């Protein structure tokens, strides 16, 4: 096997079996529907228009491309959305480096050519984002090829293996045809996804949020810079936006909807499931910078007469965020809050222990408590969660420590 750079291949003269020059390579195409990495054909500029030279008829490639058989067998090229054109779609474009967790620009593409039976199998193996590709592109045609090769070998390569490359494509139907699903990106931590998305142009951001899984999108959205977050949601259609907002923590969702223009947030709410919509609208009624605006309505609570095993059952059924399970709240027959049990105590106690034995006093605040007082309570009592109670001492929601950290960091 040997490496061929895309920039070397582009513009190379193409000779057919008889040795006659037939034209020059204009593009290199991959058909992801058939194979994700294999080169399907080269587009050759011939005197008779653009022709497709199938990779199965390649004999050798480099500065000259030699083909098996006669040029008359090459079909005419017609533009199609379903093929990835390496020069147009990849070279000089931005891609997501999933492994390095950042957005990078492609300087060159590395192809592997391996002889198989009588022809060459050509496939994409990596993209070059370093100085090697850059200098090759810069000096090509100005410096003799062998000098250039010797020079380039001294430069340490900076390449991203193809499996870690996520392409950016803003046209949704083309994304489907090219099978771009942001698989690698989706597996990253939501905070890393957010960092990457912030580095992208608006249309590409939209593309990512249209494509990735709703749950991942929701978590990534929560991590985005507030300004970017609003613009992303505004660019999505209401249906898709609603799907993502449903997956968000209700407090974060309320926060977000509040910052959207009223008609937009209305449209999104309309598209949401009734249950999630109710939670969010409730939160929306409170001021944004109060305990109620910060709280989530997803928490774990158990009747105060119960045992540890009741608490474990409640935890098993809980679908909210992990931060919220740090404290299990107890309520009386009248649903008034009567105490709190830290998760640790549940973990180290036998299932039959009555919760009353593990009970601690719950620190609570009213829904209209302003942000700074909320932060003050967390500081004073070293809280992980804070209960927000209504006028009947009933638990309305909880604020978790991560909400407070976010709040303090964006205090301006």
């Amino acid at each position, binding site marked *: 096997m040997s490496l061929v750079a895309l920039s070397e291949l582009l513009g190379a003269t193409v000779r057919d079996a008889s040795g006659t020059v037939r034209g020059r390579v204009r593009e290199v195409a991959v058909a992801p529907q058939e194979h994700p990495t294999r080169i399907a054909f080269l587009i050759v500029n011939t005197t008779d228009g653009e022709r497709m030279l199938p990779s199965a008829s390649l004999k050798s490639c480099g500065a000259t491309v030699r083909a098996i058989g006669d040029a008359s067998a090459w079909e005419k090229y017609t533009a199609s959305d379903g093929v990835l054109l390496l020069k147009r779609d990849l070279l*000089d474009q931005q891609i997501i480096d999933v492994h390095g967790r950042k957005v990078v620009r492609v300087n060159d593409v590395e192809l592997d050519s391996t002889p198989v039976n009588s022809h060459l199998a050509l496939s994409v193996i990596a993209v070059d984002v370093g100085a090697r590709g850059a200098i090759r*592109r*810069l000096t090509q045609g100005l410096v003799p090829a062998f000098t250039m090769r010797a020079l380039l070998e001294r430069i340490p390569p900076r390449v991203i293996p193809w499996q870690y490359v996520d392409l950016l494509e803003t046209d949704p139907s083309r994304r489907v045809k090219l099978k771009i699903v942001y698989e690698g990106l989706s597996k990253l931590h939501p905070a890393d996804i957010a960092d990457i998305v912030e*580095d992208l*142009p608006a249309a590409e951001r939209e593309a990512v949020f249209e494509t990735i899984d709703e749950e991942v999108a929701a978590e990534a959205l929560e991590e985005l810079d507030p300004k970017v977050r609003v*613009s992303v949601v505004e660019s999505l259609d209401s249906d898709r936006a609603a799907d993502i907002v449903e997956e968000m923590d209700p407090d974060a969702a309320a926060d977000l909807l509040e910052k959207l223009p009223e008609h937009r947030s209305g449209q999104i709410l309309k598209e949401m499931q009734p249950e999630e919509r109710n939670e969010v609208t409730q939160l929306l009624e409170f001021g944004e910078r109060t305990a109620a605006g910060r709280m989530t309505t997803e928490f774990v609570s158990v009747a105060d007469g119960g045992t540890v095993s009741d608490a474990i059952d409640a935890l098993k059924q809980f679908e909210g965020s992990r931060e919220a399970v740090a404290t299990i709240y107890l309520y009386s027959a009248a649903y008034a809050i009567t105490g709190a049990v830290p998760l640790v105590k549940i973990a180290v106690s036998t299932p039959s222990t009555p919760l009353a034995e593990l009970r601690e006093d719950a620190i609570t605040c009213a829904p209209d408590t302003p942000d700074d007082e909320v932060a003050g309570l967390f500081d004073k009592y070293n809280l992980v969660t804070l209960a927000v109670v209504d006028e009947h001492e009933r638990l309305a929601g909880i604020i978790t420590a991560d909400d407070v950290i976010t709040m303090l960091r964006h205090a301006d």
Partner: protein
Amino acid sequence: MKSFLKSWKARLVLLLAVIGPGFITANVDNDAGGIFTYSQAGAQFGYTLLWTMIPITIALIVVQEMSARLGAVTGKGLSDLIREEFGFRLTFIVMVTLVITNFGNIVAEFAGVASSLELFGWSKYIVVPVCAFVVWALVVRGTYTSIEKIFLTASAFYVCYIVAGVLAHPDWKAAAFATVTRPEAAGIRNYGYLFTVVGLVGTTIAPWMQFYLQASIVEKGITARQYRASRWDVIVGCIFTDVVAWFIIVACAATLYANRHHDIASAADAAQALRPLAGDYAYLLFAAGLFNASIFAASILPISTAYAVCEGLGFESGLDKKFHEAPVFYWLYTVLIVMGAGVLLVPRIPLVYVSVLSQVANGVVLPLVLVFMLLLANDRELMNEHTNSRGFNIVAWTTVVAMIVLTALMLITHR
């Protein structure tokens, strides 16, 4: 009184809220290089060069509007677009050219700093390094954005030129006539004349402004849909710039030229233009205004250059990155400032001449950047229905050709 203050304050806040990237760019445009070039034009040629202002304004509006539209429609910076559409080699050439011309502009900004503070008798050997460090730190620490509004407010200083222009009792009729008259043919054989014309175009339609404006539009998140408002922001900004430019030329013509003071060698000379307004305090007013304009532009130019180059060539960039994550970005930024300021420490360097020269270089490089912008703005695949109108293309291509011809004539007449 209190309510007056309150309403005045409210109005200011409102004004600052609607001021967009177009207006800011226009203000930064009247930087040290600009002030010196306009002053020199007025002092040396009187009203003769006023004819340039109308064509320059039209070209400026067309060019800036193109930058803003490219940014709003594509959501990408100019260097990103050049890279994606024209490949690595051309991008590299444009970037090297941009770094060289922008470096000249940075030198001009620090020359503005040095010469303005020289009026107070402060040595440039102290103020230039200090100011360079302050600018470097302001931007790297992110404090810049919070003081941008101060700079912007302080650029109200330009109004002084309008007042000074009026108070100098210029020959209004001659000035107005010179503005609408056609250029005299003798100019094309006069090196000094051509040099100044190229400088006037270069300082008003500077290549770096196109990169900066487009980047600001993208950063503000302005999209094709919200673009209509931005277009007005751009147009108003352009007109404001050139009205100020017109008055600087007129003020200098009515004072310096009228007194046969044809050569501006230092800021002290240029300050004389404000004498009708401020009398003996003219130099104070001029120094403050020039200092603000220079520092304002000096805070923007190096960082905007670093962004453009790194984005075009694919290096990590951004102030949110750490030094070791984006070494090229930070080094380029630092070197531009250190070298730009360092050049001025050469003893007896002619500050004003260097500033004007950098603006002439802008004018020479302008066609190169314009051609790329024109090709991009007419690319249907990129711009959809937002491609250039025929009128825009005519104005922009005429500018390209005119600048190439002017540059060629300038080189021929030079000996």
